[in-house]
């Protein structure tokens, strides 16, 4: 007996929506204890995660499976125009999104329990997550863009939810204006596609392209779509907002934005360009979505996306090298990591798709974790500059070691998941042969470059002496020499546990990636060759 016999394919979304309503209801009733609202959010995301993992075929949780396996990875009937479709790759992305939401929710339970904003924070975060889940099952352009809007609107509000912080307000304003622009571009692109093909269904659009060809209207439409989505994924030259927003937003929100929400754009790219083509004959391993199916669209767009990927990696890395503030450095590194993901999209083969998905998974762990550590360190009273972190690794060994693991993983050092994801991605680039091999070279050179700024943080944290108070007067009557001692504890169990778990996963899957990698690759194969 599984849940699927009750016929509730949207159960994860329903669970989250129920949690949102409950949290807002309790808010109205003036029940705002963070243990309660946070607990609801944690439980809801964990339960939804369990549902998704069960749907992916994880045997021990099979009883939770809510989607009949006969509905997963199926092509629609010829002529049908479904709004949504369940693909195993979409489910993988849902799981990744829920994981990010779960980590942020769990870590945030460690804030002061009298904070009035907590219901707003958790409610908005779960709302944004619902939008992300919907993105992962979209099969219609309008459905997709509306789902992105759900996430976007919730995240604009999240950036400003504290309402007191001027920097947060400014960031939210910038985020909103840029986000609105990106939405306009996307919808304009969609309308051009509709004008050319008379449909907004992604299957039918791809089918029409394979059958009819690609008039200039369509190329323009795809161009605008790429621009609109590029804002979401922070691709150069559409990246400038991201640093200010991640920098100005509350730390936990930055963790969710950089780790979670920007990945919806990656999956939107998958959906628009790489899904299966309905027409028999263009389906199969040789035909990867639009790139494999068409001579007209494939190479030119692939070269454009490849160029953007190299540009994004390089600009992100070079600017990260120049930063003095920890959060801004992480924001630029986040931009460069988006470039790695785009390599997979530009290649478009099933191995590359799998590599990009693994990179998304790895980045969720690394970047969410890193921003959560930043929040924890800020709570300890350490300043925003990288210099301020001097000696932190020795004063807080576990926190420092966890952060070091996250940075090493971002740099792609072996035995971390960040290495595995880059290795698979670059292998896929070489495996695709042709000019893609240069994407691997560019990616490898960028990884080498990125080592420098991550290593600099490690040096500051582990080799430099802790800061000494600037003048004796500030140390008060005690006048004790030596480094100031950080407050004991202060992290809270939720945040400490989250950081430790993330660090453990990074190493565990770095050493033995087969379980997650096997599942992702299988899903990627289904995604591009479904029904073949």
């Amino acid at each position, binding site marked *: 007996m599984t849940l699927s016999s009750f016929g509730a394919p949207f159960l994860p979304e329903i669970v989250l929506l129920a949690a949102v309503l409950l949290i807002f209801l309790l808010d109205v009733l003036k029940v705002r204890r963070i243990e309660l609202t946070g607990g609801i959010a944690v439980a809801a995301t964990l339960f939804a995660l369990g549902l998704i993992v069960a749907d992916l075929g994880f045997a021990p949780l099979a009883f939770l499976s809510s989607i009949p396996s006969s509905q997963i990875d199926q092509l629609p009937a010829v002529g049908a125009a479904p709004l949504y479709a369940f693909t195993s790759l979409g489910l993988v992305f849902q799981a990744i999104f829920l994981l990010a939401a779960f980590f942020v929710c769990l870590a945030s339970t460690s804030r002061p329990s009298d904070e009035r904003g907590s219901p707003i924070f958790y409610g908005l975060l779960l709302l944004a997550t619902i939008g992300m889940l919907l993105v992962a099952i979209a099969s219609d352009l309008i459905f997709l863009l509306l789902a992105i809007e759900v996430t976007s609107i919730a995240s604009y509000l999240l950036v400003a939810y504290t309402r007191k912080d001027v920097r947060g307000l400014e960031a939210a304003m910038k985020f909103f204006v840029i986000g609105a622009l990106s939405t306009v571009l996307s919808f304009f692109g969609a309308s051009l596609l509709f004008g050319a093909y008379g449909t907004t269904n992604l299957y039918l659009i791809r089918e029409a392209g394979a059958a009819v060809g690609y008039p200039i209207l369509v190329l323009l439409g795809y161009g605008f779509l790429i621009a609109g989505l590029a804002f979401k994924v922070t691709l150069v030259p559409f990246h400038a907002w991201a640093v200010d927003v991640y920098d100005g937003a509350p730390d936990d929100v930055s963790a969710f934005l950089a780790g979670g929400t920007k990945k919806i754009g990656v999956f939107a790219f998958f959906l628009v360009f790489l899904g299966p083509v309905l027409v028999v004959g263009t389906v199969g391993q040789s035909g990867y979505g639009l790139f494999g199916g068409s001579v007209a669209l494939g190479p030119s767009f692939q070269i454009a996306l490849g160029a953007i990927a190299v540009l994004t990696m390089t600009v992100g890395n070079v600017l990260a090298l120049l930063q003095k503030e920890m959060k801004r450095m992480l924001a630029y590194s986040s931009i460069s990591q988006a470039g790695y993901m785009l390599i997979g999209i530009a290649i478009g083969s099933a191995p590359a798709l799998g590599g990009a998905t693994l990179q998304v998974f790895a980045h969720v762990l690394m970047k969410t974790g890193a921003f959560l550590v930043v929040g924890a360190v800020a709570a300890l009273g350490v300043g925003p500059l990288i210099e301020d972190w001097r000696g932190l690794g020795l004063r807080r060994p576990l926190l420092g070691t966890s952060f070091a693991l996250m940075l090493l993983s971002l740099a792609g050092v072996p035995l971390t998941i960040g290495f595995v994801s880059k290795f698979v991605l670059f292998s896929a680039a*070489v495996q695709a042969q042709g000019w893609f091999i240069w994407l691997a070279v560019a990616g*490898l050179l960028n990884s080498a470059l990125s080592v420098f700024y991550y290593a600099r943080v490690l040096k500051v944290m582990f080799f430099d002496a802790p800061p000494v108070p600037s003048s004796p007067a500030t140390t008060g009557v005690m006048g004790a020499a030596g480094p100031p001692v950080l407050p004991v504890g202060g992290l809270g169990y939720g945040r400490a546990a989250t950081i430790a778990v993330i660090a453990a996963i990074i190493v565990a899957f770095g050493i033995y990636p087969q379980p997650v990698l096997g599942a992702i690759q299988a899903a990627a194969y289904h995604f591009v060759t479904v029904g073949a």
Partner: protein
Amino acid sequence: MLPLLSIILATLLVGTVGTFLSGTKARWVALATSAVFLAEVGLLFMSYPGWPGYSGSLVPGFSDTETYTWISLAWMHVNYSVGVDGISLIFILLTAILQIATVVYSWGETQRPAGYFGLVLLTCLGCFGVFVALDILLFFLFWEAVLVPMFFLIGYWGGPNRRYAAIKFFVYTHVASIVMLVGLLALVFYSGATSFDFTAVYAAAHGMAPVVQTFLFLALFFGFAVKFPIVPFHTWLPDAHVEAPTGGSVLLAGLLLKLGGYGLIRWAVEVLPNGFHSAQPLLFVIAFLTIIWGSVLSLAQRDIKRMVAYSSINHMGIVLLAIALDSSLGLLAAVLLMFAHGVVSALLFMASGSVHHQYGTRDIASLGGITPSAPGLATMIMAGSLASLGLPALIGFPAEFTAFLATWDALGYWVLIPLAVLVVTAGFYLWMMQRMLFGLPKGVPEHAHDIPWYEGAGMGLLVALTILFGILPSLLVNVIVNSPIKGWPGT
């Protein structure tokens, strides 16, 4: 059968971690680890055909192999796959010898000893891994793992110009690694192997088009050759060797340079025969250039350590020449040469390190007549120099003789070039000895005394081996020729 290679890896790993954690007692942990490592390598030898005590049947190819699935996807299979043949065994022996010699020689290290000995062990762990890995990813992981500890050894314990040298070393070798990695990945996917395993790649690569093979060979060659180093990518070497602490120089010259030669033989020459053939003329040109350039530059040096460093370039040029001959005798010579150079250059770097400790300078011209006050040190310098110039009954002779024989077989009178260079080098070594060791004392302090016992012990071990294998090179040759290389009895 006992998974001996994994046990050795585990030994080194535990020993390295233990060394890092054991503070001022680090040298004892390092010594114990090295001793166990050496004993285990002895066991490894006894179970390999060609070793005097071996009683089993002659099974050519890789022995002590272990394979466990690591990553398995539809398009990519990566294994934890290790194994040894005669060639890798020789390099493993070299690793074990140099590790224990370095640890003993550095016994007096007082500056953060835990870090120093830990990094020495980590470097040797990486080299050992490179020599046993039979999977491309595993090979690359160990290859990179060597880089990091050496970077810190140079950057923290090195001489006055250490930061520049460390970064130059890192950038040169890392860029080369990246080219090599792309070449290795292309080797897998262009040959259609899908498996990263050596045997699978080996089998699949022979079917590739000659043009593709040539490009792949050049990519791999570049990656390996920067480690060699070849002219014109050699400039990292003098800086790194001279600035590194003595232990670091020993490992650099003794082991790290050999990674390039070993990689070239294992992963490029045998795997891509057609690519190798079309690149052969280029290899000859580079080899001759490297031989001549290395020796000319070593002539011009006043600093004894710098002189030894440049003579390393010269020797590795002969190794490249021997490999490029594409004969089984040439390959044998290359392996012998690398072993000999590993021992002898380690000895010479230790000796020049001792000169620096004793007299505060390494300038040949400002020193003289050190023999009366430091007979031990003088003996070591002399033994190393004589071995390096190829005196019979020392290890350099059989190696160089084989190399010149193979060159004569393949190229005829071209052999006169390396021979002439050898004469020049020999002359310079003799002149250096004459000025530094003999004559009236110059630059020697009033109460000068001989080197400390541990430095003498470290060098003495190497001198003993130089003599042993110089008289009995068959101990090595019989093992090497059981490797799965065409033209050898083992195949």
